[in-house]
């Protein structure tokens, strides 16, 4: 019996160690970014742990970094909103309608997920040039151009998470509302919509993250002055590194953790893990 207990304890220690190791792996880069952002030393290379504490980089964040951050947030929110407008009806149609070729339609909606983002970036670049040649409409380096491509990237996530909720949906609830005399529109607004809302929130959040975190599409389609945050950081890291990058990245890291807290309060983390947004 003692041997079993010892074994069980060893197993417990091993699993705690494994989890701890994984968390160190996952969080080390974030801790290092936050830590190094407070280093005031002279920068021949980046210091972690910080050599001398200073917040000076926080006052030296270039205004165009803030601009690109504002652009990315605005673009992400617009993408998330429009992706819901497109994705929720698509999901309802996919789950509720019976028609031939439904599997094909579902696959078409998922298709953007199968195309590498680089390929989406360069193919939209080509398409935009073509549209420019034929219609004289300029899309490269413009906000609408970025928005269309981001919508293409992000809508499948909304469809996916709303479909997941709808498949667990109890149709009786709608029937009950209808049989009690509610109109179709009222039933939709008062019964269907509130029930699928967690899926919509989760989908909107994934859509925002896809847009906010995207580099290749924004890199190719955004022009000077039209670079969302992630693409801007990418460029700065490749060409001219500036320590204030660490400071603004720290804002993002803190913001992400704060948003988790609010999401947990608003819709519950279960919803996020269950719809497993890929």
């Amino acid at each position, binding site marked *: 019996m003692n041997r079993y207990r010892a*074994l069980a304890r060893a197993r417990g220690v091993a*699993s705690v160690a*494994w*989890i701890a190791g*994984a*968390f160190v*792996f*996952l*969080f*080390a*880069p*974030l*801790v*290092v*970014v936050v830590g190094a952002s407070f280093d005031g030393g002279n920068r021949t*290379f*980046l210091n*972690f*742990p910080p050599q001398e504490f200073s917040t000076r980089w926080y006052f030296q964040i270039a205004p165009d970094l803030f601009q690109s951050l504002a652009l990315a947030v605005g673009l992400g929110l617009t993408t998330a909103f429009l992706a819901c407008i*497109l994705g929720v009806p*698509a999901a*309802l*149609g996919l789950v509720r*309608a019976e*028609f031939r070729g439904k599997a094909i*339609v579902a696959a*078409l*909606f998922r298709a*953007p997920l199968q*195309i*590498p*983002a*680089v*390929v989406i970036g*360069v*193919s*939209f*670049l*080509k*398409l935009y040039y073509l549209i420019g040649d034929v219609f004289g409409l300029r899309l490269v380096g413009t906000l609408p151009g970025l928005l269309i491509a981001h919508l293409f990237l992000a*809508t499948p996530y909304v469809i996916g998470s709303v479909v997941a909720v709808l498949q667990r949906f109890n149709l009786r609830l709608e029937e009950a509302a209808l049989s009690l005399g509610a109109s179709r529109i009222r039933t939709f607004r008062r019964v269907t919509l509130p029930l699928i809302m967690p899926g919509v929130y989760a989908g909107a959040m994934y859509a925002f*993250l896809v847009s906010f*975190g995207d*580099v*290749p599409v924004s890199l*190719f389609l955004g022009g000077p002055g039209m670079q969302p945050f*992630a693409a801007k*950081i990418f460029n700065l*890291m490749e060409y001219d590194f500036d320590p204030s990058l660490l400071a603004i*990245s720290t804002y*993002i890291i803190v913001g992400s953790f704060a*948003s*988790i*807290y609010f999401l*947990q309060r608003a819709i519950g*983390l279960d919803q996020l*893990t*269950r719809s497993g*947004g*890929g």
Partner: protein
Amino acid sequence: MKARWHWILLPSLLLSLGLLLASQIAFLRGGFFRDLRLGRMGTDFTLANYERFFTDPLYLDSLVLTVRLSLTVAILTLLVGFPIAYVLARLKSRWTLVLLAGIIAASFITIVIKVLGLIIIFSSGGFLNRFLMWTGIVSSPIAIVGNPGGVVVGLMHFTMGFSILLLYSVVQTIPRSLEEAAEIHGAPRWRVFARVILPLSLPGLVVTGLIVFNLCMGAFTSAALIGGGKVFTLPVLIQQTVINQTRYGMGATISAILMLVTLAINGLSVLAMTKLDKRRSAVA
């Protein structure tokens, strides 16, 4: 009455289908035309670009490297991620939620910032390298930039968070009572793992592995930043070819082959899975 559901699907279908076809056709058909200078293209249909891909070692090596890196990352992600997902799913503690929230938060943060952190950790004068050299484990600093191993680490940071979440929901579908039943009948722990947990989570493991594999095949950001102009995976090569050299034709060819190879590997794995499944159910 029922027909209404068709119509609400139509606008978004037309839009996504339109964008999908327009962008992919406009781009991919370029693969069959010769690149002239300054982004202009020839007018004669040709397979020259495809021929070049399969004869020029630059492209073939890149394809092999991309598949190898993606496979490595998929396997490592499952090996590291599954035990964590398992423990989290079985843990009955107030900490579960906090740990899960941590993983979700980590997977929220854009890969650019994580790569920034990785580069600091592995910088030649950084604390990790100084420590490793002090202990004598390595004699010269480990570099992450410009080295395929570094790209693997970067890609794992890209895929680990959501893989754990996916696997977590897989383990949650396995009733604990099945494990207990096996244990009561005297099965040692490894046997419970090999005969109960593993077979039941195999489909989920394969799906997660494939998602990770596909993401890595197409991953650009971490490969480009950590590769540092030395590790050319296919997505990095596509960017180089199209953006820096304005060779849309060759870029389209590489893209087409990248997507076809990814699709083929997915198809083969699904096929292998169903075969395995059938054989197993025939035995049972």
